[in-house]
């Protein structure tokens, strides 16, 4: 018999981390899906819908694994549709309202650059199931990043009006980027066990992608000032409640409804 000498990973930390990851993908996926049928051009409508679809697909994998690890019989759907706002663990950036097309793209770019680095690193996770999902998600996220980067550059270095809107979006969203690299006991425990990279270790790679892109986009990177946080602990802005009202309506009004 083969002995597994690795210390058992803290299952409650694993669950907490997976819910954070799943909720980021879920809430951003939902936000992006709000554009379906409303984008400025058909191609962009399709691209946004495809991005949303990838994120919702990844949500099913992350929250599905979270439910499995929790061992209480909760499915990805249960976790998505039957939790209240204070139980959601997404960062505040992804629940920011869509605003105009430029703001949606800027939010996507700031997230994609981080998401890309995280999915790349998670492929080396000591937890096999996490590494497998990351391997799948990484391929999709690479396409997301190429697109959002390209459009941030085109619009930043575009007309006076598009430049003004992109700079305003960047200034508005920047104070929400600090939470991407925040950590607490959950990340400390899991990074020490080799399950995840330490969030702070992604910062220099993210800074590089963001600086290069913003400079090509002729946009001014804001100074790091006050950074909003709270989503990872379940303390959200008022916007999350409105998202959940729409997203969860059917299951709340008609529990267990299927098609």
């Amino acid at each position, binding site marked *: 018999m083969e002995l597994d000498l690795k210390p058992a990973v803290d299952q409650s930390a694993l669950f907490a981390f997976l819910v954070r990851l799943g909720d980021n993908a879920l809430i951003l996926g939902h936000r992006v899906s709000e554009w379906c049928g409303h984008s400025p051009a058909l191609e962009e409508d399709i691209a946004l819908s*495809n991005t949303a679809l990838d994120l919702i697909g990844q949500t099913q*994998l992350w929250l599905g694994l979270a439910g499995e690890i929790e061992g209480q019989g909760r499915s990805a759907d249960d976790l998505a549709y039957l939790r209240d706002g204070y139980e959601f663990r997404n960062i505040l950036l992804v629940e920011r309202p869509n605003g105009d097309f430029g703001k949606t793209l800027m939010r996507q770019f700031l997230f994609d650059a981080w998401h890309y680095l995280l999915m790349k690193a998670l492929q080396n996770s000591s937890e096999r199931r996490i590494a497998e999902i990351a391997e*799948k998600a990484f391929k999709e996220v*690479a396409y997301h990043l*190429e*697109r959002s980067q390209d459009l941030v*550059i085109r619009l930043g270095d575009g007309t006076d009006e598009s430049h003004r809107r992109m700079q305003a979006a960047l200034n508005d969203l920047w104070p929400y980027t600090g939470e991407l690299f925040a950590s607490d006991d959950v990340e400390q425990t899991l990074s020490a066990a080799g399950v995840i990279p330490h969030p702070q270790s992604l910062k220099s790679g993210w800074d590089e992608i963001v600086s290069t892109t913003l400079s090509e986009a002729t946009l001014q990177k804001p100074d790091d000032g006050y950074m909003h946080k709270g989503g990872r602990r379940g303390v959200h802005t008022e916007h999350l409640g409105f998202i959940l009202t729409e997203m969860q309506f059917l299951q709340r009004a008609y529990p267990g409804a299927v098609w």
Partner: protein
Amino acid sequence: MATAAVRPSVEEVWRWLSDVPDPEIPIISLTELGIIRDVEWRDDELVVTVTPTYSGCPATSIINVDIERALVEKGLENVRLERELSPAWTTDWITTEGREKLRSYGIAPPIDGTAANGVLMKRIDRLSGRSNLSIACPRCGSTNTEKVSQFGSTPCKASYRCSDCLEPFDYFKCI
């Protein structure tokens, strides 16, 4: 009823599965798409291992239903589907016949080794809308084509346009 005596071989099951079309691109079969990873008997149970194309592809659940239905119609009763995420599906697994069928259907087949890596191509190529790939128009064969959008009518396709015959077409993008 399939008893141990008349149990079909896995080769036979592979042949049956090669007749099951992809629900969104019915010109190619699930085996040509490369998403059936394994077929094996475990005692009296036939286990078919399937890998998803994209994690959010809406066709995934339909594909599973189609596989089960096809095997049940052949008389199998004890079929189980298993999902395998790793190694992650790649367009490299689309067979040569599958690629030709895609082309005949009006979809330019993927060019291996050109999956997105998150790094943008040169600014001049990007801003001119030029692609870093030379993709032949499935209608007239011209490689004088341009990318309209990296995201197309389904998660697995990009939108292109031929600058010679002026027809828009889908490119099965590489992942």
